């Protein structure tokens, strides 16, 4: 193989053949490589080797049949030639060739350097997310990077380069205006910033933020405008969403019926936003407390509380400042006009959307002033009803439709009358516990009927106390309005045991009086029939006899007349007796004392009488007279007494009649109609009759008769 001569190399170089090819041909080494040294390699820390196209290359190293010759100029590396190691035998040839290529190498190195730089910027511009575009002074796109091509909605740079930029990046409706604005910037095309929204070639809506700057030539004329941009479509979208979200939040915030106020973690009331100095509270809050904004912002929230004695409000805010939601707190909030309203609220940690603080404390609460007032009223009403219930003489209790007593569902009268402790009542079945067993079924049926909708009616039944006393009760059962789907019935009862006893006594007394009256009438009729009437019948027969005999046997007739005379005397006497028994004339004519004197005179034992002369009401005189008459009759019949004392005393408002004997005693007022009849007669005048009759101790009957007026 023969080497190429120097002259051959020079000719090749002058023909414009590539330097490496020329060198390879001259040295007959097809694998020959030329590398250039760049002092400042873009993108690396210092210098570096590149191939003639400007691409990075490894440092040339001799070995493996290859040798390296470094070409230097002014003591600095320029290039390295990698060649066949066989050429080392001809160093002169190598030196001659490199010397001949010296200028060409220099030139070629500069080109490689330029190429490397362009390649770098190309890489950079095509890999950065920012948009880059160059536009000439007519608005024609000269160059643009991949990001810009993509934003434009294209794949290939060539589809875009050469077109007017407004045709690519501006919506049709805006193009004319933009074109005019661009023209107006000539000839200086000062730096500026623009944001524009357009629909690109793919139909996507993009938002781009551009920053532009003019490029000048050596004469200072603008030759191009470089635009750096950023696709802010997503960011803008996010911002819009955020804004909308904030709008929604603000709307919600302001339209909530709950009060809301934002506090800094130190508990002071915040403004709404950096741009909005109004208070960070919603309308409900402002309406509720009615302070001007400037008096609220920056003020400690606790300042507008009426009081926080137990520190609960302060603790709640501290809890939220620490990142947790507080418990509920009830506070009265002070308004500017000095009034206050009651709120139940809690403090919640929230993010500060303005980004000025880590987080805020949101006080969120509900106005319960009206509920408070209502509760207070209900409480008062309840207390009122409770007082009524517990002071009512009636027995009251609450039962459900199965008759089960509710806890504490009975009033004091119920507990006292039925002798139960309050705790013993709840849970009892009403008719099983408080009603006489023989009437439990009646009561149960009545209550179940009323629970099922029957009309309540008053009933009389026997209830029993804890100790087994039986009480006559007049009671009713009334269903109450349903609460919580529960049927409750109110049982109201009145203890009529005493009233019933009095009623019974009164009825018995009346019956006895009627019987006594009847008995008296019978006796009277009998007496009239047996006495005076028989004598008058005999007289009538005798007079007829006299009539028939007066002529035929005057002596016999005279004898019959004499007998008739005696008979008539007896008849008159008997009639007088009877009349006295009905109502003694002396009592009517001359009064009680005179009548009692007559009674005393006719008694078959000694009677000592002590009575006032004065006249009293007819009823009282008659009652006193009959008490004494009956008592003296009894003494005569049973007492075997030798004497008796009759005393009548008029005290304040009452007449006391006493009949005492010295007889055998042992009289039982329950037996015999006489004494009971007297008691009835006295009772009619609201008086009382007492009998004291110990065996062998004599008998004392004492009647007290109230004097009307």
């Amino acid at each position: 193989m023969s080497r190429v001569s120097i002259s051959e190399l020079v000719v090749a170089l002058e023909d414009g053949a590539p330097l490496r090819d020329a060198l390879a041909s001259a040295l007959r080494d097809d694998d020959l490589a030329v590398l250039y040294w760049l002092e400042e390699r873009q993108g690396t820390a210092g210098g570096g080797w590149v191939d003639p196209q400007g691409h990075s290359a490894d440092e040339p190293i001799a070995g493996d049949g290859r040798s390296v010759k470094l070409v230097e100029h002014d003591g600095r590396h320029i290039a390295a030639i990698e060649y066949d190691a066989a050429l080392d035998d001809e160093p002169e040839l190598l030196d001659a060739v490199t010397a001949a290529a010296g200028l060409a190498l220099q030139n070629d190195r500069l080109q490689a350097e330029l190429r490397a730089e362009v390649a770098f910027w190309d890489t950079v511009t095509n890999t950065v997310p920012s948009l880059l575009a160059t536009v000439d002074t007519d608005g024609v796109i000269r160059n643009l990077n991949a990001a810009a091509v993509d934003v434009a909605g294209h794949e290939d740079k060539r589809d875009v380069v050469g077109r007017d930029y407004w045709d690519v990046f501006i919506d049709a409706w805006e193009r004319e205006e933009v074109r005019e604005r661009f023209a107006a910037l000539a000839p200086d095309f000062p730096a500026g910033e623009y944001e524009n929204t357009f629909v690109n070639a793919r139909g996507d809506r993009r938002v781009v933020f551009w920053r532009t700057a003019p490029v000048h030539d050596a004469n200072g004329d603008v030759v191009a405008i470089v635009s750096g941009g950023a696709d802010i479509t997503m960011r803008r979208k996010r911002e819009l969403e955020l804004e909308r979200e904030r709008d929604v939040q603000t709307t919600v915030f302001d339209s909530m019926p709950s009060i809301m106020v934002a506090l800094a973690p130190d508990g002071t009331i915040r403004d709404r936003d950096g741009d909005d100095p109004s208070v960070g509270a919603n309308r409900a809050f402002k309406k509720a407390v009615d302070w001007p904004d400037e008096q609220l912002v920056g003020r400690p929230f606790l300042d507008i509380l009426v009081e926080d004695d137990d520190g609960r409000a302060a603790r709640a805010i501290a809890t939220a400042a620490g990142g947790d939601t507080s418990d509920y707190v009830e506070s009265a909030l002070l308004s500017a006009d000095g009034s206050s309203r009651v709120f139940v609220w809690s403090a919640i940690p929230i993010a500060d959307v303005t980004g000025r603080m880590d987080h805020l404390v949101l006080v969120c609460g509900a106005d319960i002033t009206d509920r408070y007032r209502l509760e207070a009223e209900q409480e008062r009403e309840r207390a009122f009803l409770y007082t009524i219930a517990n002071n009512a003489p009636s027995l009251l209790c609450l039962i459900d439709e199965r008759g089960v007593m509710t806890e504490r569902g009975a009033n004091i009268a119920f507990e006292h009358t039925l002798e139960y402790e309050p705790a013993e009542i709840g849970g009892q079945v009403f008719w099983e516990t408080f009603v006489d067993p023989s009437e439990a079924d009646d009561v149960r049926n009545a209550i179940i009927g009323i629970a099922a909708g029957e009309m309540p009616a008053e009933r009389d039944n026997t209830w029993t106390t804890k100790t087994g006393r039986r009480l006559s009760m007049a009671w009713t059962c009334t269903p109450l309005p349903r609460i919580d789907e529960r049927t409750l019935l109110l049982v109201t009862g009145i203890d009529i045991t005493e009233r019933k006893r009095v009623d019974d006594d009164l009825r018995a007394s009346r019956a006895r009086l009627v019987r006594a009256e009847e008995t008296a009438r019978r006796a009277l009729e009998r007496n009239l029939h047996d006495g005076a009437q028989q004598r008058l019948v005999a007289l009538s027969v005798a007079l007829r006899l006299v009539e028939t005999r007066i002529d035929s046997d005057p002596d016999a007739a005279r004898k019959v007349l004499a007998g008739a005379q005696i008979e008539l005397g007896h008849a008159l006497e008997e009639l007088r007796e009877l009349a006295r028994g009905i109502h003694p004339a002396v009592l009517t004519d001359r009064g009680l004392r005179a009548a009692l004197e007559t009674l005393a005179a006719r008694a078959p034992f000694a009677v000592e009488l002590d009575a006032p002369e004065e006249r009293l009401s007819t009823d009282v005189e008659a009652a006193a007279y009959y008490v004494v008459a009956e008592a003296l009759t009894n003494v005569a019949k049973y007492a075997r007494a030798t004497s008796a004392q009759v005393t009548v005393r008029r005290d304040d408002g009452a007449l006391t009649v006493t009949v005492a004997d010295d007889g055998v005693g042992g009289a039982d007022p329950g037996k015999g109609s006489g004494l009971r009849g007297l008691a009835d007669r006295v009772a009619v005048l609201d008086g009382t009759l007492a009998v004291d009759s110990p065996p062998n101790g004599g008998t004392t009957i004492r009647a007290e008769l109230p004097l009307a007026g």
Partner: protein
Amino acid sequence: MSPTALIVDDHPSFRASARAVLESEGFDVVGELEDGASVLEAVVALDPDVVLLDVQLPDMSGFDVCALLEDCEARSGRVILVSSRDLADYGDLVESSCACGFVPKGDLSGEVITALLA
């Protein structure tokens, strides 16, 4: 022969008056009784033509006595009820009894008795 009479009344004064009146008008008073219990026995024993029977006896009423006599086969005499009360006081008791008449005590005479027995 005089008609015979039995007087039943608890009041001695009436019995005495009745005997005087009847005897003065030709009756033979064969007996006097003061209660109802012995009437039946006396009627059987004395067999009077007329029994003058008081309505209000102490042990039983004249109507009860009447009922007893009605059941008695041996009876042949007639019963006349007497009373110090009025006939109207007894309603239809007299009418429905076996007595052949009623005489208020004040109106008693042999003439009335004879008229009722006729």
